[in-house]
């Protein structure tokens, strides 16, 4: 199994409640997978200060203060580090490449969980409820959030195997299912200079999409390209700073439900994750069709 949730807020008045709503959604999906969990939060001013780049790091092997000093030294300018659970969020007034390079110099063995403007990615091994409590996720704010509860199948239960995979600037993918030809696609991407952090199949999908986007394709085209290249079962939620997209494979055996109101668009593996959203009783609710890309932008 595995559970996916995503919430894209249209009504700014709901933004202070993003974390509270996302927590309920994530924890409702914990019996679809409780090996690990992760979330991506777009627009929380504490975790990803506006106007700055934020890099989310795991397994840095050091503490926030030491990492902050090391990043600042490598960057040649100030950097702030916020510890949220196991994740260290490094933010600075620098472009993405410069801050990523500085983070990699300061903590060469760290796992980059995500990077970009207005994006914080938190993930860890353990029970989704315990992780969400540890992150104080209910207090998060912002305009968009995605989450994943993992029941591991093809790779290890560790931080590198936890979703989301946020491998491009501001981009993020969560996946329910399995890619069967991921090793082949990984080899081709590696030949094209793409770097991988894990043996996980979803990371291949995420890096495939990031590679497509980096080559100038739009999200819809990139996802259609994924349909023709990657084989297997998948319901995917692909987000970036300004967009939110859902895709299912041709067989569509991995569940998905979308609900939409004037105030928000939400997606989850099952309806029960959406049952507490404000106004859900009047939402338009449907099951996404196979191989159709559903995308929303802000």
């Amino acid at each position, binding site marked *: 199994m595995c559970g996916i949730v995503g919430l894209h807020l249209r009504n700014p008045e709901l933004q202070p409640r993003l974390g509270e709503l996302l927590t309920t959604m994530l924890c409702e999906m914990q019996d679809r997978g409780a090996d690990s969990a992760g979330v991506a939060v777009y627009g929380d001013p504490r975790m990803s200060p506006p106007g700055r780049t934020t890099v989310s790091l795991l397994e840095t092997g050091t503490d926030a203060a030491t990492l902050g000093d090391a990043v600042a030294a490598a960057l040649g300018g100030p950097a702030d580090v916020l510890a949220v659970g196991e994740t260290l969020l490094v933010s600075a007034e620098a472009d993405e490449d410069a801050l990523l390079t500085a983070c990699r110099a300061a903590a060469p063995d760290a796992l980059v969980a995500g990077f970009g403007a207005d994006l914080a990615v938190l993930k860890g091994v353990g029970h989704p409820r315990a992780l969400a409590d540890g992150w104080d996720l209910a207090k998060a704010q912002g305009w968009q959030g995605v989450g994943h509860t993992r029941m591991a199948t093809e790779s290890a239960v560790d931080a590198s195997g936890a979703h989301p995979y946020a491998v491009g600037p501001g981009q993020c993918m969560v996946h329910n299912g399995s890619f069967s030809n991921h090793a082949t696609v990984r080899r081709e991407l590696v030949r094209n200079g793409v770097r991988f952090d894990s043996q996980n199949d979803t990371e291949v999908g995420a890096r495939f999409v990031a590679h497509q986007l980096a080559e100038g394709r739009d999200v819809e085209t990139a996802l259609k390209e994924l349909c023709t290249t990657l084989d297997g079962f998948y319901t995917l939620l692909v987000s970036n700073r300004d967009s939110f997209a859902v895709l299912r494979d041709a*067989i*569509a*055996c991995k*569940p998905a*439900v979308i609900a939409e109101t004037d105030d928000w668009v939400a997606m989850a593996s*099952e*309806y*029960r*994750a*959406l*049952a*507490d959203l404000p106004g859900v009783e009047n939402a338009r*609710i*449907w*099951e996404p*069709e*196979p191989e159709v890309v559903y995308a929303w932008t802000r």
Partner: protein
Amino acid sequence: MDTLTSTTTSTTYDLGETPLREVNAALHAPGLSGDFVITGPAGAHNVACGLNAPVKVTVAGHVGYYAAGMNQQAEVVIEGNAGTGVAENMMSGSVVVTGNASQSAAATAHGGLLVVHGDASARCAISLKGADVVVGGNVGHNSAFMAQAGRLVVRGNAGHGLGDSLYETRIYVRGEVASLGADCVAKEMGPEHLEELTGLLKAAGYDDDPATYTRYGSARSLYHFHSDNVSAY
């Protein structure tokens, strides 16, 4: 002569307060009768499963997987959408979904009637074994896959691979069929089919002109042994 007054008892369970297992256990009580209302399902799985009594159960809201599964005798109405496998393996009685149903609705159902007033997604009536299914809207791909007996009526369109590897289920579709599965073919509508379809539509609360439907069935070329293929065995 005594006057008999019939009073129907109605019992309400709120799934926000009473655990699902307690509600289902209460609905499994021997000799059960009356009307029941289940509120606050909030997408829960296995709501009103395994009923075997001539009762009426109304579920007020959306349900998760396998709602009204294995139903016998009961009339279950789901006022909302249903997740995967609604009325799976139903034996008798009826299940009505006022909204949409997710994949594998009425899978392997042997008897009774499932009505989905909205759309049903992929694999509707998969391996159907004798139940009747009427869908008010569209059905997704691979519906009636390997369906053996019973009837499937689709008032809207059908997705790809309709009736793949079909046995003897009869399928009636009013709209477009994206593609037919292996061994599924369009067939002539005889008077007995028009009559059968009229009855099914009526049972589901519709009065469409049956002549606007096309009947599909098995070409029966897959499930008979063919001597030309002897070398393949």
